[in-house]
């Protein structure tokens, strides 16, 4: 009998971690826990064919991917305050109490990773480590599925459909406002991903898009919102019934000049028209400036003969009768409200706090008082993932 032991260089492990440590907590459903400084929420996924679950090369949305149901990875990091290039906002997930229903993705088993930054490292380096580690953990958590039989297999395929049905596209906006404000397409910031362009709808559901954008917590789309995207799934479901799913166009939010905004909006409309779309659902990420991108896209689509419905969150003061939209065009005559991000969620005293004991405004997380919806991760996300909406009272 002979035995061989093969040796490989250390570099294969990848770069050594630059964090002082990571705390891992498994939090069961309904535990009285508040999680603070939440960067992202990710569903555990792995591919039986060995390709990456969150690929940076190749094409997602082909073959098969395994998901672990009822588990959410939440990553937390308190950036070193003194060098915050942009002022990211507090991002909270409550697993019980009045805020819990705002973040329904976190209601099952939650694997909470709290990264402890090592001094002297820049925010961008830290963020990159935290993000990659979180995606790797999500992939590892799904590994046992490789040896098991699935309880269910869903198939996403656009078969032939009655040509008399209206063709509908989804125009999905990805943010790029610089460091800490990126959503990634195959690991590339949205601004460098040659947007706008049409992609296969299944790519969205299969980990092609990941989130590294940390501005208004409620108005952003964490990774899980793309993995479980309600809009893409609804359009797949309705394909051949009430509509034909024409495809997905990815576009960038936070184009930086008026001219770029107009050009990008026109190009997104052209891409939608190129898919043969009669109508398009226009989504948004984050707020302010990116709402102008969405509204200009609505205008450009309508001018190109593609009818639109937009999904936007409101930022209305409680005593004001204005919906508090940053921008609006008269062509936007069909809008879905993703809720009012300014409304306060009643105070709640959690039994434990994970992620960091103080909110970014300095208040103790266990006695923070009422917290606005805007601080709840993804609560008013503008792809229509959840049921939160605002109505006139």
């Amino acid at each position, binding site marked *: 009998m002979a035995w061989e032991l093969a040796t490989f260089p250390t570099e294969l492990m990848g770069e050594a971690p630059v964090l002082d440590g990571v705390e891992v907590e498994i939090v069961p459903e309904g535990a009285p826990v508040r999680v603070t400084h939440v960067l992202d929420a990710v569903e555990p996924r792995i591919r039986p064919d060995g390709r990456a679950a969150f690929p940076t090369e190749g094409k997602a949305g082909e073959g098969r991917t395994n998901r672990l149901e009822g588990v959410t990875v939440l990553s937390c990091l308190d950036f070193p305050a003194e060098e915050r*290039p*942009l*002022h990211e906002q507090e991002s909270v997930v409550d697993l019980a109490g009045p805020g819990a229903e705002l973040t329904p993705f976190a209601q099952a088993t939650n694997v909470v990773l709290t990264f402890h930054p090592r001094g002297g490292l820049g925010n961008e380096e830290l963020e990159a480590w935290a993000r990659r580690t979180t995606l790797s953990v999500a992939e590892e958590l799904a590994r046992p599925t490789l040896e098991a039989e699935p309880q269910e297999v869903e198939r996403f395929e656009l078969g032939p459909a009655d040509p008399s049905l*209206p063709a*509908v596209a989804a125009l999905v906006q990805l943010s790029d*406002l*610089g460091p800490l404000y990126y959503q990634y397409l195959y690991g590339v910031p949205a601004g460098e991903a040659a947007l706008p362009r049409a992609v296969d709808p299944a790519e969205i559901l299969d980990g092609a898009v990941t989130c590294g954008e940390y501005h*208004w917590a409620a108005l952003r789309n964490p990774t899980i919102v793309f993995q479980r995207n*309600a*809009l893409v*799934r*609804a*359009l797949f479901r309705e394909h051949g019934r009430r*509509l034909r799913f024409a495809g997905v166009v990815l576009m960038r939010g936070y184009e930086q000049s008026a001219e770029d905004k107009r050009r990008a909006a026109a190009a997104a409309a052209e891409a939608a028209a190129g898919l043969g779309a*009669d*109508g*398009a*659902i226009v989504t948004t990420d984050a*707020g302010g*400036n990116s709402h102008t991108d969405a509204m200009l896209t609505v205008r450009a689509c309508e001018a190109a003969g593609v*009818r*639109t*419905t937009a*999904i*936007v969150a*409101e*930022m*209305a003061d*409680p*005593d*004001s*009768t*204005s*919906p*508090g*939209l940053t*921008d*609006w065009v008269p062509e*936007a*005559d*069909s*809008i*879905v*409200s993703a*809720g*009012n991000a300014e*409304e306060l969620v009643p105070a709640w005293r959690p039994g434990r706090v994970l992620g960091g004991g103080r909110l970014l405004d300095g208040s103790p997380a266990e006695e923070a008082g009422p917290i606005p*919806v805007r601080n709840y991760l993804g609560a008013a996300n*503008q*792809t*229509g*993932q*959840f*049921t*939160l*909406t*605002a*109505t*006139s*009272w």
Partner: protein
Amino acid sequence: MVRAVHYLNQFFAGLGGEEAAETPPTRLEGAVGPGRGLAAELQGVEIVATLACGDDYFGEHEEQALASLVELLEAERPGLLVAGPAFGSGRYGHACARFLRTASERLRIPVLAAMHEESPGVGTAEGKVLIVPTAVNVAGMRDALPRMARLAEAVVSGRELGPPEEEGYLPRGFRRNRFAPKPGAERAVDLLLAKLAGEARSEIAGGFDRVPPPAPVPDLSRALLALVTEAGCVPQGNPDRLPTIRAQGWLRYELAGSRSLAAGRYESVHGGFDVKLANEDPNRLVPLDTVSELADEGRLGRVHDVLYTTTGNGTPVASATRFGREIAAELKEAGVEAVLLSGT
């Protein structure tokens, strides 16, 4: 027992029709006319007096009428003021809404009117008055009074009101969250298919406050020009703690004859963009250097020696409007004729 006062026009108060429309504000004892029917429906609330005013009198002497009505009202020490139903009557509906708004602001008591949803009074109320919707004419009286009574009892109880359709009032326009039966994505599909079928519906009403450009400054070479910014530009170190987002106010800084905003002496604390380039040269946000040169060349009159600044980041429109009004008042006072407003 809560003391309530009821407001009616001359007709419903039984003072007469059009010929009595000039009647000035008048006090009548107890419940009168429709007030009697309302009183019969009310539990725990007593109509102690009725105030009446002619529609024409109110329309032609609004300020006087309001002053008299408020005075008469105060004397009753009421815990509630109700008005109408005014149904579709425009003048009556307007008077109800105007009086109730004023009374609510001055006396801080709950107020409640009833009128048709298309009455001009609904616009006058601007969401500041609870309005029970009624039929367009008096045939809706029997239906309206019990609904007014239920809402009146609810408001005097001090409990938080539920949504308009549950409590029976016209939406005032305040945006409140709730959970819809379907996710936004499915509602978007429904709305888009309806629009493609010819029926555009929206969960957010259109309309936006677009500011028309003002007339050009007649002669810039003689004008006093002020620099105003929402770019979060403050003296280095942000001594007055201007917030990086959601500023609650604005700040004023003396420029003390400076002709340029020096790097290291000014910085931007705005939280909505990368301030690196701005902080290399703060004049990129507030071009004091350029306007000073233009003044030297005689193309501008003078530069106002005060910088007005705030952070325009996540600021609600209502707050921004207030900042603008307050800053404009100071500028006007200082004789400023032109403003260079740099936005980010």
